[in-house]
């Protein structure tokens, strides 16, 4: 038992109950189906933009690119074009591999004391594998949901659905991305529970998004394969939202509203939490600056505007006195 994950778990359970009570007992379908989604989405958009602009106001005092290879210097020394890029093309490649494939996480190692007190680093790929699994399947799940927000449904989206349901297991076909997302989020949770060092540094803000995403994936899977919901009515509601003609069909079960409410909480929580690494990764100075410290002078924007009195000015001011005192001067007039 740990106060941090218990707290997060209880909050998520509370949110589920809130949506249930709100829709089933109080009948606030218009609130949970229309008002909250709009409010959450607006909070998400404005919050992300605000956060990014706020970050952009922080000056970068010096080039703090992390280097994973030889910096460009003399022509006969081979430089690492991607790990230590010297131009924007290299930076773009480095950023793309970072964003799409988590390249720096791939270098993750585990430090351990072995055979008593022998210190060793070992390669550790599990976090990278499950992080890739989690993020990519989340992306696929997210993109798939656009079938509820587009009419007609774009061809590429149908292609993605066909790919996702490639194995044609059951009816409706099992989408692999949903299961992989659950697997990914489960691993990300379990590592915080079972690895003592990680458990030690994990706070409620680390567990909460995991439980929330687990809840979203779980209710989604529940609706698709088990309890069933009127998907045509759901699409009427979602299409109403995006065409700004909101409608609330009566035939949608409460489980949909629980799902939607958790998504709303995720969206509204997004800009103010660790989830903002979505925007933050683009603004990481250790990744997005070229490693050209030897070639280009970077002036610290923090530099205080110091009042200087150069020697020329000094001599101008005291020349006569200096000559009188017999001190050497640059210009004698």
């Amino acid at each position, binding site marked *: 038992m740990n106060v941090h994950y218990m707290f997060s778990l209880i909050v998520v359970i509370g949110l589920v109950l809130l949506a249930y009570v709100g829709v089933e007992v109080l009948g606030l379908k218009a609130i949970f189906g229309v008002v909250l989604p709009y409010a959450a989405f607006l909070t998400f958009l404005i919050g992300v*933009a605000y956060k990014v602009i706020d970050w952009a106001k922080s000056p970068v005092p010096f080039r703090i690119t992390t280097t994973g290879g030889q910096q460009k210097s003399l022509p006969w020394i081979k430089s690492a074009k991607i790990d230590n890029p010297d131009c924007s093309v290299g930076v773009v490649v480095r950023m793309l591999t970072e964003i799409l494939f988590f390249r720096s996480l791939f270098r993750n190692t585990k430090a351990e004391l072995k055979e008593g007190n022998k210190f060793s680093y070992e390669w550790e790929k599990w976090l990278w594998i499950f992080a890739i699994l989690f993020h990519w399947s989340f992306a696929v799940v997210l993109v798939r949901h656009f079938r509820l927000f587009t009419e007609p449904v774009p061809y590429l989206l149908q292609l993605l659905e066909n790919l996702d349901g490639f194995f044609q297991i059951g009816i409706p076909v099992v989408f692999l991305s949903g299961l992989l997302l659950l697997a990914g989020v489960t691993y990300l949770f379990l590592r915080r529970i079972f690895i003592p060092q990680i458990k030690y540094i994990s706070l409620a803000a680390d567990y909460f998004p995991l439980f929330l995403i687990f809840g979203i994936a779980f209710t989604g899977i529940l609706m698709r394969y088990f309890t069933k919901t009127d998907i045509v009515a759901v699409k009427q509601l979602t299409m109403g939202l995006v065409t700004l003609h909101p409608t609330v069909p009566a035939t949608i079960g409460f489980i949909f509203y629980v799902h939607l409410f958790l998504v709303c909480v995720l969206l509204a929580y997004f800009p103010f939490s660790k989830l903002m690494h979505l925007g933050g990764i683009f603004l990481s100075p250790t990744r997005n600056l070229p490693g050209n410290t030897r070639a280009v002078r970077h002036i610290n924007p923090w530099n205080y505007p110091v009042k200087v009195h150069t020697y020329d000015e000094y001599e101008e001011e005291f020349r006569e006195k200096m000559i009188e005192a017999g001190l050497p001067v640059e210009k004698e007039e």
Partner: protein
Amino acid sequence: MPNNNNKIYDKNKIVIGIVIFLIISLFPIWYNHFKNVPAPDPLLTEKAKIAKECVLPKVLMKTEHMQLLNSWRDSVVRDGKRLYTNSQGKVFDMSLSNGCLDCHSNKKDFCDRCHNYASVRPYCFDCHIDNPKEKK
């Protein structure tokens, strides 16, 4: 002295980034041109109208017909049992082509309307096409 002059560094890149973010996030808004399409209305054939009742009540059929068909398939293919009795004691032949599609012979105006709207492409119809019907 961080943040003392409220200046946005790399303003152009930041603005371009935020604009791209907004364009992507608002995709469903601009894709649909604010035009809402009315919900699909599956058309019943005369035969279906006369029969009035399907295998299950309409609400259940709407959400669970695919699961019913899946269990029918398992029952027919694996156990060789072809008869289904519903809660009212009515007995049906477990057959998509001869049962369901006999009444709902207008796949285009019945099945496809909702399937297209919800972007579902069930692979049932890969084999069970309307015509020719399966032979008994």
